[in-house]
């Protein structure tokens, strides 16, 4: 039995866990011998301000999965890391059966592995974690500056992940009816202003390259602000 969680939920809407969330979960997992799998596919490699999301949220995983930034997305490769307790049991079982019947033709493909190694070299040389810790306040302060905007409810984020939620009533936090497609409308306005972001429902997500400059982040939010204002105008005239 295992429990799997992203340290920060990505596609679900950039949802950060409350402090002590994972510690409390893991106490129960340990008690019942349920393994903890950290899905670090998004959070791994600096995204949350530490090398791993598990470090940011004090997760002690038995198994880690990672992908995406392992090769900076340049070539498909992912990895599963398992601890020795898990490994020993698997080794025992497969010794009994003769071999472990699991593997892909392209597992650890040399070209993908080389690109991943070069990616890790670059991370090391640039000081990935320090870079993120230095630049991420610009992203976090930038997104929170939209908290005053009439269309924006929650603003949140960690490291180089940020989100602004679009709401129909700022005071109650009431959402727009999904058939109104406010998120997608905003994406189109953002495109007009030269910005590519993602709408997870009406939660607008930002996850820029970790090497983005302060000036680029500021420009990114300037464009987002214009898209927000256009969307507000559209809502006003549409009603």
């Amino acid at each position: 039995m295992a429990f799997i969680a992203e340290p920060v939920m990505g596609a679900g809407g950039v949802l950060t866990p409350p402090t002590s969330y994972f510690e409390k979960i893991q106490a129960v997992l340990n008690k019942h011998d349920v393994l903890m799998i950290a899905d670090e596919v998004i959070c791994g490699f600096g995204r949350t301000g530490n090398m791993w999301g598990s470090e940011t949220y004090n997760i002690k995983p038995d198994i880690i999965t990672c992908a995406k930034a392992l090769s900076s997305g340049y070539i498909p490769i992912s990895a599963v890391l398992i601890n020795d307790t898990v490994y020993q049991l698997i080794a025992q079982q497969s010794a009994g059966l003769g071999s472990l019947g699991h593997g892909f033709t392209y597992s650890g493909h040399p070209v993908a592995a080389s690109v991943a190694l070069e990616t890790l070299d670059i991370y090391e040389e640039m000081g990935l974690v320090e870079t993120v810790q230095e630049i991420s306040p610009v992203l976090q302060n930038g997104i929170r500056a939209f908290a005053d905007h009439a269309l924006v409810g929650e603003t949140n984020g960690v490291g180089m992940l940020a989100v602004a939620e679009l709401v129909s009533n700022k005071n109650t936090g009431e959402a727009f009816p999904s058939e109104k497609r406010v998120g997608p409308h905003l994406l189109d306005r953002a495109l007009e202003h030269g910005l590519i972001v993602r709408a997870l429902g009406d939660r607008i997500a930002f996850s820029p390259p970790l090497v983005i400059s302060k000036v680029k982040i500021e420009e990114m939010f300037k464009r987002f602000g214009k898209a927000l204002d256009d969307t507000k105008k559209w809502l006003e005239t549409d009603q």
Partner: protein
Amino acid sequence: MTDDNGKDYIEGMSGLWCTALGFGNERLAEAAARQIRDLSFYHGFNQKSHAPQIELAERLLGLAPVPMSKVFFANSGSEANDTAFKLVWYRSNAIGTPEKKKIIGRVKGYHGVTIAAASATGTPINHQAFDLPIDRSCTLTVPTMLVAQNLVKAKSNIQRVWPKISTPLLSRKARTPLWPLLQNPSWALAGF
């Protein structure tokens, strides 16, 4: 990013949370070219391996946030998660608890679209009309972190809130191995 009309964009999402180093990094292009010339393909079956794979595994073990022992490579997040789940099942059989095979995901969690990864994913659109989730997985959680946050803040509320959260979970056919977990109020505290 530039589109086919020459219009310039800021890519605020690194593609799909991917391009940590931005686009067009020369060193990565070179690394691929070099490796294609040097050893274009090799596999890891029949006790075979090769330097880049071994070196990468060692690098990852060195970076891991907790002591880790072995690395398995795949090609996507979904495959990595499916692999993790298969290893969990394999381990259950090794320790003689074949009935304890549930993979517990969370509502709104996303782990990919292969059969097991999609099952652990907590969004209906990844299940509907695919006949998912498989019965070896289930998703738990209250839908918003805000609820969890309030719970953590107001520990005294647990007794009051727990029955509200647990009822729908428990009524969803008590799946035996999960029973002790669901009964534990600290799941509620944790947002379950």
